[in-house]
């Protein structure tokens, strides 16, 4: 009898202990590229999220606006967005709780066979873009830079995957897309497709920050969880920002995206990957706020954002600072 009671007691204790350490499950949205995954897959594989009591489930999406819509529908808790979707944050749809990196992954690609060598040659050509994303943004910058209007080109609105197919099949003459689609198109074209411009081309007028976001309502109820997630991201950034770890991170990214390691490794140059110290310093000294301000100004200039909004309205600097303590 005593043995039985002891067994029951032990089982109860095990159950209670299990309940006490049960991880918070989080559905995290990402895009299938290195820039989106470099920190989060590191956090998962290195156990940083588990250390914070978080069980991260990754869900793949094609682009940032879709991720925000998924968060609004309640199926996603937090997500990663590229530069283009930031206008939705400025417009009040979501809050940025952690800066990720400044990217150089967006390009305007064109086919030389179609007679395009410069941005000005895009006039009258079939150009594909993905509406609402950084693809649309960089195409706008490119046209403005060449003194052209949207009406000067034959614009084709497509999803990110269809852009690749359309470009490779020759259905369109040029397109604006991001890595790794850019690499795929260039490699498949046997020298025909060239990059007309990238984010760096427009560094004088805008920056292309990528960020981790959360809905306002979710943050209000789960600020502690967001903080834990940010802490884990910081640890992952410290690992992933070291060049000696790029190969390992690329392996994890390739595994997650079900692509070859070479494709993932080729994307390690798409951005300067910051460490947690750099993010923390940037959040405290106003550097990151400056990036978002410049970005917002560019959105206002292009008409995507109607009026200036204080950056602190949609960026949770307190969270970034608190996580670094």
């Amino acid at each position, binding site marked *: 009898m005593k043995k039985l009671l002891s067994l029951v007691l032990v089982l109860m204790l095990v159950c209670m202990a299990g309940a006490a350490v049960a991880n918070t499950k989080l559905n995290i949205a990402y895009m299938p590229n290195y820039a989106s995954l470099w920190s989060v897959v590191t956090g998962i594989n290195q156990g940083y999220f588990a250390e914070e009591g978080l069980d991260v489930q990754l869900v793949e999406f094609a682009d940032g606006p879709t991720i925000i819509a998924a968060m609004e529908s309640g199926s996603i808790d937090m997500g990663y967005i590229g530069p283009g979707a930031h206008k939705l944050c400025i417009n009040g749809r979501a809050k940025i709780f952690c800066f990720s990196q400044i990217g150089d992954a967006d390009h305007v690609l064109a086919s030389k066979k179609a007679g395009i060598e410069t941005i000005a040659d895009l006039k009258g050509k079939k150009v594909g873009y993905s509406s609402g994303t950084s693809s649309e943004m960089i195409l706008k910058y490119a046209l403005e830079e060449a003194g052209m209007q949207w009406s000067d080109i034959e614009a084709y609105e497509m999803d990110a995957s*269809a852009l690749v197919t359309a470009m490779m099949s020759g259905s369109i003459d040029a397109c604006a897309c991001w890595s790794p689609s850019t690499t795929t198109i260039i490699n498949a074209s046997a020298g025909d497709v060239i990059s007309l411009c990238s984010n760096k081309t427009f560094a004088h007028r805008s920056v292309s920050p990528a960020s981790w976001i959360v809905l306002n309502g979710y943050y209000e109820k789960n600020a502690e969880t967001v903080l834990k997630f940010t802490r884990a991201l910081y640890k992952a950034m410290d690992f992933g920002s070291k060049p000696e770890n790029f190969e390992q991170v690329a392996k994890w990214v390739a595994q997650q995206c*079900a692509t070859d390691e070479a494709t993932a490794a080729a994307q390690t140059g798409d951005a300067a990957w910051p460490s947690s110290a750099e993010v923390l310093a940037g959040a405290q000294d106003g550097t990151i706020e400056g990036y978002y301000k410049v970005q917002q100004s560019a959105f206002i200039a292009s008409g995507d954002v109607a009026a200036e909004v204080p950056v602190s309205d949609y960026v949770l600097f307190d969270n970034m600072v608190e996580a670094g303590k």
Partner: protein
Amino acid sequence: MAILVISLLVLLSLVLFSSKRSRETGLILAMTLALALHWMSVLIYIAKKGGIGQDMQIMLFGTKAIRHNLQYLLLSLKQLGYAMAVGRYLYPLLLVLLALQYSYDPRICRRRALRPLACILPVLTLIIYLPPVFETLIAWHRMMLIILVKTTLVWIALYLLSALALLLHEYRQIGIPFYRREFRRKCTMVISLSLLYAVYYPQDPAQVYLFYRNEYMGAVQGLWYLNPALNLGNYMLVFAAVLICFALGFRSLMLYAQENFRQEHEDVAIQRKFDAASKGVSVFVHSVKNQLLANRILLRRLDAELKKESPDLGRVQDYQRSLSQSNEAMLLRMEELYQSVKKNSITLVPHALESVCLAAKERFARKYPAASLEISGCEGVQILCDRVHMAEAIYNLLTNGWEAHMAAGREDKPIRICCRQERMWTVIDVTDCGDGISASQRMQIFDPFYSSKNTNTNWGMGLYYVRAIVRSHLGVLRLESSIGRGSSFIIQLPRYDGGR
């Protein structure tokens, strides 16, 4: 899984249409194609946009390779959105057209304008949802988006409910068990397709055109293709239910097509059997010749007897009686055979059904004066028929039915003729309380010269004759029988008042 289910539905519909080319199967095929277009567009959109886990990927696409292929399909969002719109707005229209096709209610089917009227809203919506038209309207006024989304949602719901109401109404109008069973299966098939349609019905293609625009995301939140409409278990349940229900309906329609085919071939086969049976007639003639030869012997004996100086009158009377009986028997059998095989012309003129039934009753009463017969439902009904032949056909059914009563020892129960107007038919239902007809007998009872009774008194031409008469009246003769409980021979004649 979803792709597999949709592919199977399309495949079965194609098989159905190629087996039985009719407006009904054409509409079912069109409905399935509209449903497939709607679902495939949604699946392509999901494949492109993502947002699903591994389990859901298997449920919707089967393998990652299939999803990958769909993801990289060269389709613009406007093309994809319009493909969704075409599937979404054509399905309810086709469902209503099918329900109208099934309807035999004179209040509905006589209103020919209903079909073109039903097309107005879907066609108008499809014009509005053309991407350039749609964007112009949305740009004109912000409220237009909400109005369009809500309006389409309402009219689709009304179409679906109207179609289901029509189907239910029609089902309740059907009394003939065979047609009731068949219609139930068809309805199950149609409802199963609609169940699949309903999974993504609340979603509006506007979200594909305007996904990134604040107009849609702000105004009509909550309508979203990428949100899994159901959880994994419910998806499996829906797919399994749809496949089973569709398979049942498919089987029913295929059986019906085969039944029609079989009946046409049966007529040919029965004609062949009859041709073969005419050889039997030769045998019969031969046997009658033998009978006549026997009679000749009787006559010779009679002659020899009469040539005697003092004929034995008793013998003479015996010979004469034998000859007379033989002659009458032969005449009767000859007459019956003649009646059965002679090619009569049928003259179809309007007659009161009641008078036809009474004529049959009169003949029946002469043969079985003690039999009890109840007639109902024939008052005021006109049918287009050859009165003599139709009365004869009903008389034959009554005779068979009463003989079944006698064989079962149920002479205390009446035999019944129940008449009614149903859909496009006037139905004459002759029901007995005999022992019923076994499945093996049902295969043969309409054959000429087949009889399960005493062949000395039955030629086995009765039901062959009834069937031939009903067919010559452009009607159908059906049999519903239950062993131990009795049989119903159902004569369906085209309604003289038009029906529809």
